């Protein structure tokens, strides 16, 4: 997982990877080197203080100059919250994340439905499985113009949708999307905050980390 100035949840993502049985490798934003990792997580937080736009400055980090071609080449990448924002700014994912519709920062458990279980990040879920994750964001409203939204939907690129209510005004209740190839996934709510009963609302998020490990071992 990459640490940018202002990243918050890199350590939690590392913990989730370890609990899932993987080896967590910490990457530094200024180091243009992926150190031969098998997958990359861009964590949540406030890289560069959300200055200019969330993820707009992180998107030009040295580590991204290595990550972008690797992602286009099939490396599994998961962007969580601020990481999702960075992936959209880097054009590795379509659309953009904007200010929550009610302007409030939302910090609560949310229910999401996993609609694409064929990505390396979601293979351990059953189709349309509902899980509880933690939403923790001020700019989580996903937007895409009607042609892009139509393409996303018909191509099955919506990975997760909010159920039981739309917390932030995301178009189509979208909580997560993937790129066309399926190796790059962006997710607004935090799976790494739902990996053990002590520290979160259940273990529904663990599947993201176990799935990618299984994909790497099997693939």
């Amino acid at each position, binding site marked *: 997982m990459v640490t940018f100035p202002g990243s918050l949840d890199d350590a939690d993502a590392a913990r989730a990877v370890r609990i899932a049985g993987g080896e967590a490798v910490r990457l530094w934003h200024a180091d243009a080197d992926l150190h031969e990792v098998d997958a990359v997580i861009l964590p949540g937080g406030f890289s560069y203080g959300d200055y200019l736009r969330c993820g707009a400055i992180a998107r030009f980090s040295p580590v991204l100059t290595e990550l972008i071609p690797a992602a286009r080449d099939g490396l599994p990448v998961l962007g969580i919250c601020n990481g999702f924002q960075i992936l959209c700014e880097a054009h590795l994912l379509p659309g953009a994340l904007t200010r929550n519709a009610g302007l409030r920062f939302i910090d609560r458990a949310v229910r999401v439905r996993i609609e694409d279980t064929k990505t390396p990040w979601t293979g351990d879920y059953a189709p349309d499985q509902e899980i509880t994750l933690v939403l923790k964001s001020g700019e989580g409203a996903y937007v*895409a113009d009607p042609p892009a939204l139509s393409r996303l939907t018909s191509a099955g690129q919506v990975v997760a949708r909010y159920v039981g209510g739309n917390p932030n005004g995301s178009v189509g209740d979208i909580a997560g999307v993937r790129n066309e190839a399926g190796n790059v996934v962006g997710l607004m709510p935090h799976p790494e905050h739902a990996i053990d009963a002590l520290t979160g609302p259940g273990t529904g998020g663990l599947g993201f980390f176990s799935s990618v490990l299984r994909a790497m071992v099997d693939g």
Partner: protein
Amino acid sequence: MGRVVVDVMPKPEILDPQGSAVAGALARLGFTEFASARQGKRFELVVEGAVTDDLLARAREAAETLLSNPVIEDVVQVRAAD
């Protein structure tokens, strides 16, 4: 010393909750003349020397690459400041 001013606004079709909040606050303060508001950004780029057409073109490139996100924003103006 020259200055280039860049104005960025959210695209018209994008929901602008900040603009709505501003409009609501204006109305509560008695500025009832204004039906709505939208909030954008103004950047001032400082250069040594005069602002040439080449420089304005570079500023526009910077505006489209970094200062704005073309998915949700329009660069509405790039001009030399007086």
